């Protein structure tokens, strides 16, 4: 029986055993980390070009729209205002290099002018959901790497 093959009972068609395809787990973690750091890169590294570009594009577009709407990113290291900003910061952190780049350059954090804009809350939501979606995308890259998905 080869890898990934299902053995069936000839007469009744009952599944006797299933061998699950296993990829390299260490490499799968690397794909997940890459996918988190650069949206879509975990899929691109596994030659899933279509999915990688689609996911990367969707997450990046969501982040850009969020910033254009005046959304602010939350500083995950800021514990002075309770736990909620940290939770939102963890959501934002999902965008990987987009969050880290903004954090290092100081853009998009606590900009008072943005809070006056009518679309401010929309922007915050877009930024948080972009991060959460990228976590899902990174998990998907892990599943492909480990052999659970095609």
């Amino acid at each position, binding site marked *: 029986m080869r890898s990934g093959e299902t053995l069936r009972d000839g007469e009744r068609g009952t599944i006797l055993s299933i061998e699950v395809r296993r990829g390299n787990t260490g490499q799968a973690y690397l794909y997940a980390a890459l996918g988190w750091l650069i949206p879509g890169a975990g899929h691109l590294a596994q030659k899933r070009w279509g*999915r990688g570009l*689609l*996911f990367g594009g*969707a*997450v990046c*577009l*969501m982040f850009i*729209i969020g910033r254009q709407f005046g959304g602010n990113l939350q500083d995950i290291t800021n514990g002075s205002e309770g736990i909620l900003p940290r939770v939102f910061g963890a959501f934002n952190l999902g965008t990987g290099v987009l969050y880290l780049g903004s954090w290092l350059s100081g853009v998009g954090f606590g900009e008072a002018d943005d809070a006056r804009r009518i*679309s401010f809350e*929309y922007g915050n*939501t*877009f930024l948080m*959901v972009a991060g959460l*979606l990228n976590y*899902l*995308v990174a998990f*998907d890259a892990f599943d492909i790497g480990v052999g659970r*998905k095609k």
Partner: protein
Amino acid sequence: MRHLIVICVFAALVGVVFGGISNETPREQIKYGAQVFAKFALFAFVLGWVLFLLP
């Protein structure tokens, strides 16, 4: 009108990712993505009117 466009953009982007990560055939991925889009947009539209009509 702008709120509706924003929720449609939001629902479309979420639908793309949700549809893409679902473990089905491309046809079913598109179908599921479209379902997610429709449900997000419809729910937001209905909830918006409910909250608007509440005193």
